[in-house]
């Protein structure tokens, strides 16, 4: 298993080949659309991994990740526009701010379980959305267009090609995976899983329940805010409708669930399935605004969660087990 211990020889070969293929992708494939789809896959995979630290290991099913995403996007953008702060610094500032917000919301919600936590996270994210929608300082519902800087890695902005964005988000994703792997194989991962299994038992074992849940929220919020800054730098326009709405939070949960919650690679698989599907159906069927694309999307979600609730990763491992 990937979640524990070392990789086997075959897995090392598999991941090396995959990694080289991913590095070569923007060089081999022509056209901007495939690269764009891959960027969206990595972006949501990263958010799925961040969600997983909360939901997969600690069973805190957050449906409010859009709040952290939006805070990341807005913080770096406002810092750049109003104070001429470099986006990389903005990225870090957004992460810290989101982590603090996460802690602020995590303390009152730390005793909530299951559905109550899920609803509290929606309520929190909706408050943030409503506020940004009316806040003159961030141009309210009008949204912000980022000032165009000369393209360079230092400016976190590229105009001639999507490839640099592709590599940056790939690095972000790998970083998130490493953090998630580190957590899952170390003390914190075991504590979070113990809390998930039984609150009372974990408390009895002397595990500081509130502290580890707070750590999980803060790490998850930081990574999600990083994704938010990336999104702002990539799209160059943000408004509450594009970075703070509930469907983004839901998409993040779906990515994690579809792949298999609580596994390291699950969200990556989930994103690799869901994002191309939603991007392609949007382009093919969504242009008339008929709702067909979202209909297919909804139908897929309900069928998968009803008939394959362990996710694709769970499905694959069960096949592998029965094959042995």
């Amino acid at each position, binding site marked *: 298993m990937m979640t524990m211990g070392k990789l086997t020889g075959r897995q090392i070969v598999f991941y090396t080949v995959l990694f080289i293929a991913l590095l070569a992708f923007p060089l081999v494939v022509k056209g901007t659309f495939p690269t764009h789809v891959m960027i969206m896959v990595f972006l949501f995979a990263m958010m799925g991994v961040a969600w997983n630290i909360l939901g997969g290991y600690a069973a805190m099913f957050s449906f409010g990740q859009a709040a952290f995403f939006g805070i990341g996007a807005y913080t770096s953008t406002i810092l750049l526009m109003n104070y001429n702060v470099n986006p990389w610094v903005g990225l870090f500032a957004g992460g810290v701010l989101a982590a603090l917000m996460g802690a602020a919301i995590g303390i*009152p919600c730390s005793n909530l379980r299951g*559905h*109550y936590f899920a*609803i*509290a996270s929606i*309520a929190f994210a909706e408050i943030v959305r409503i*506020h940004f929608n009316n806040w003159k300082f961030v141009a309210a519902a009008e949204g912000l267009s980022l000032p165009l800087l000369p393209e360079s890695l230092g400016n976190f902005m590229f105009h001639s090609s999507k490839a640099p964005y592709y590599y940056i988000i790939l690095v972000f994703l790998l970083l998130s995976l490493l953090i998630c792997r580190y957590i899952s194989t170390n003390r914190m991962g075991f504590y979070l899983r113990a809390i998930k299994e039984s609150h009372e038992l974990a408390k009895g074992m002397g595990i500081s329940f509130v502290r580890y849940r707070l750590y999980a929220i803060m790490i998850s919020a930081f990574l999600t805010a990083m994704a938010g800054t990336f999104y702002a730098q990539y799209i160059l326009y943000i408004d509450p409708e594009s970075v703070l709405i509930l469907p983004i939070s839901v998409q993040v949960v779906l990515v994690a669930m579809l792949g298999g919650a609580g596994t390291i690679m699950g969200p990556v698989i989930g994103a690799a399935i869901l994002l191309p599907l939603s991007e392609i159906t949007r382009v093919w069927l969504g242009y008339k605004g008929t*709702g067909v694309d979202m209909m297919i999307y909804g139908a897929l*979600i309900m069928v998968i969660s009803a008939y394959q609730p*362990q996710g694709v990763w769970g499905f694959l491992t069960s096949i592998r087990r029965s094959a042995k």
Partner: protein
Amino acid sequence: MSEQLVVQLMNGLLIGFMYSLIAIGLTMIWGVMNIINFAHADFLMIGMFTSFWLYTLYGIDPIFSIPVCAVLLFVMGWLIYKYLVSKVMTGPALAQLVVTFGISIFIANTAVLLWTPDFRMIEKPLLYGTWNFGTVQLSIPKAVASIGSVLVSLALFLFLRKTKTGKAILATEMNRSSALLMGINTERVNALSFAIGSSLVGVAGAFLSMYYYIYPQVGGTFGLISFCIVALGGFGSIEGAFIAGILIGIVQTLGGYFFDPAYKYAIVFAMYLITVWIRPQGLMG
């Protein structure tokens, strides 16, 4: 008390009764099955459109569509339970949360496809206009809807307390395995609760269609508000949901009046967060 304030309070109360009716269906499903139905408010939308089309195509007034909506949504709820929700009852908690999200997205966008995202309204329902008390005006459809909401809630309450089936539902809510041991068919109770919960929100939809805009995404805000009401009222508590619904209706309108109308929902969500912080189990849980 200023006259404005009386009007605001009354509006809060009127919307609150509607919220209560929407939320008691949701809390019943939540209480019996421990599942949040994220598609609940989309069932509301189906109820509203049913009433709209009956009025537009056949000239049937919304007040007479109520039984149609109740039956239609009952059947729909039963089928959705049988073919989708029942499959996740023993599955992972996350799948239980997500399956109804899928249903919600599917229903709302099917409505967009069939009826376009336009806003519609029932122009002249039978119950129309206002009653005047001095300078204070009371909207007739809203008042009737509120009375209807109270009556339906009362009927549900009596059904659960007095009939054998109702008692079986309550028993399942209290302790599923004991109920099963006592010979209650809990699977049937689940399906029935889901169907009744859906039917109630269908009735709410018919009432709401008399004075509210009808469009495919109408479920959005009502959905979020009703989750807060249910959680605020306490896990599966019908009385709790009823009271919390009225409370939230009043908080929303007064908050909008004293503070800023744009923030009225934010105030409701903030109130929810503060309440569960102090009482994680809700008011009556």
